[in-house]
């Protein structure tokens, strides 16, 4: 663990509140900045609406009988599943995190940022959290309106389960950002890590956001449960459309494991990567 990481985590392993204050300040400043541009974020609603509209039409076509179940999901559950995963996708804009890391490394800006009194990766995470704190509630509001008007309410939804769902969504978004940062940090070795991010994004998009895991053959399900699809996409959306206490505990446990392993990997790659850094003057 580098000196900066040691600053962030105290010797006893308990997070030291004072050391985290700087990240709270970064978070708050980005949050305030994003609140100023809330109207700009709303312009992104069109893309989300198009995507959801297509899937409503697609599942309308696929479910030919009223009350039919596909992979154990009713039509309403299936559409709400897609709406929730896409809400997290559009509402978090995690690719912006990856773009920033890549640009900082390729452009050399990282040389300035790594000398600041914070850990670069945690700085990026704090910024990202500030961004989605504005975006996500806006997209959640839009999703609820579209869903309620075009599909109807989520079947058997209980308001008491919302706090667990919120925790699950926040963990999912953070795990996704950590993994996106890990991939972007590969830019220390190869000039552009974007192609690797495409594959990761596509894995999440095609397998994680469009379909629940139950729709895949059993062997594929077992494999996908080990991938980031489970804690990032499937877990949070599954709890929203079909909440169960046991499922909730299982998903939160997987997310905690993924987050710990992801952060460890992120610090490791960063520490190895900065040793490779070669800065041109200018």
């Amino acid at each position, binding site marked *: 663990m580098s000196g900066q990481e040691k600053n962030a985590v105290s010797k006893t392993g308990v997070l030291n509140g004072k050391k985290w204050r700087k990240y709270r300040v970064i978070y708050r400043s980005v949050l305030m900045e994003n609140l100023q541009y809330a109207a*700009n974020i709303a*312009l*992104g609603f*069109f*893309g989300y609406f*198009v*995507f959801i*509209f*297509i899937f409503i*039409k*697609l599942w*309308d*076509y*696929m479910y030919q009988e009223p009350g039919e179940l*596909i992979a154990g999901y009713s039509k309403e559950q299936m559409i709400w599943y897609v709406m929730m995963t896409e809400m997290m996708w559009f509402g978090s804009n995690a690719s912006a995190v990856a773009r920033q890391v890549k640009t900082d490394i390729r452009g050399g800006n990282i040389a300035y940022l790594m000398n600041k009194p914070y850990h670069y990766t945690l700085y990026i995470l704090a910024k990202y959290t500030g961004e989605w704190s504005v975006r996500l509630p806006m997209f959640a509001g839009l999703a609820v309106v579209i869903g309620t008007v075009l599909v109807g309410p989520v079947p058997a939804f209980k308001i008491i389960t919302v706090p667990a769902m919120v925790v699950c969504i926040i963990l999912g978004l953070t795990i996704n950002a950590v993994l996106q940062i890990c991939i972007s940090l590969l830019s220390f070795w*190869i*000039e*552009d890590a*974007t*192609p*690797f991010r*495409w*594959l990761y994004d*596509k*894995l999440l998009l*095609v*397998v994680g956001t*469009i*379909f629940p895991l139950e*729709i*895949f053959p059993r062997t594929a399900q077992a494999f996908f449960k080990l991938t980031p699809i489970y804690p990032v996409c499937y877990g949070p959306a599954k709890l929203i459309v079909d909440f169960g206490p046991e499922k909730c505990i299982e998903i939160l446990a997987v997310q905690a494991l993924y987050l710990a392993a992801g952060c460890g990997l992120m610090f490791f790659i960063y520490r190895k990567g900065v040793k490779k850094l070669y800065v041109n003057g200018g």
Partner: protein
Amino acid sequence: MLTAVKNQVRVCMLSVKYNIMREMLNKVTFLTNVTFMILNNGSILIQWFILFRLREDIGGYTMREVILLWGLTAASFGLSHILFARVYSLPELIVSGKLDSYLVQPKSVLLGVMTSATDISAIGDLLYGVILLAAGGLGVRGFMMSLLFVVTGMIILTAFAVLLGSLSFWFVRVDMLSGQMIMGLVSFATYPDGIFRGISRFLLYFVMPVGMVVYHPVHILVRFDAGMLLTVLGYACLLSVAAAAVFYRGLRRYASSSLMEARM
């Protein structure tokens, strides 16, 4: 007149050639970009295998038609981003006053802007699209016709982007709307038109030109219709003329930002 057109085309081709050569300076990055874009596009087929496990046809399309749909969309999108990538950032050029360097060149301003950048990963899109069209079981004649539709699709996509981007001469903040309309068009273009009914179907054929980019071409490839073919060709020509007219009409309103910039 003919010489002027020939010279203009030659300059455009040279511009694209040098764009690609510049991007190829780092061969590893170039190859990973192209290869991973093909893999990235290929992963989408998983979605269709899953859907066709549930139903034999989706919106009247079998897997073969979906392959043609994806082939045409990917190849048209790819070709447009290889030759005319800059049109997709036209609003930014207009709003930030960066058109100055194009205005002083003794060639067509619009073509100069259009050919000034290349999106290298789009080569992967084009290759993927052509591979799918070749795998679509069309035969030699059908394959040649599909390549014609790749060109008409590219023209329509590019003209639509110019048309939307040119609105920046009149309105600020069109960039996001323009980008989302283009991505919306591409999203719709990758799903069968049979799942859309009523007003949405009308919009896809008459407001967003998705019908002309892919739906009509797929129908023609499956069952030839000369009238529909002429409609697509005519639409591509008309939209190009309209896009150029709107761009040059808007250019009269253009205000420079006095930004010093050199084009190399």
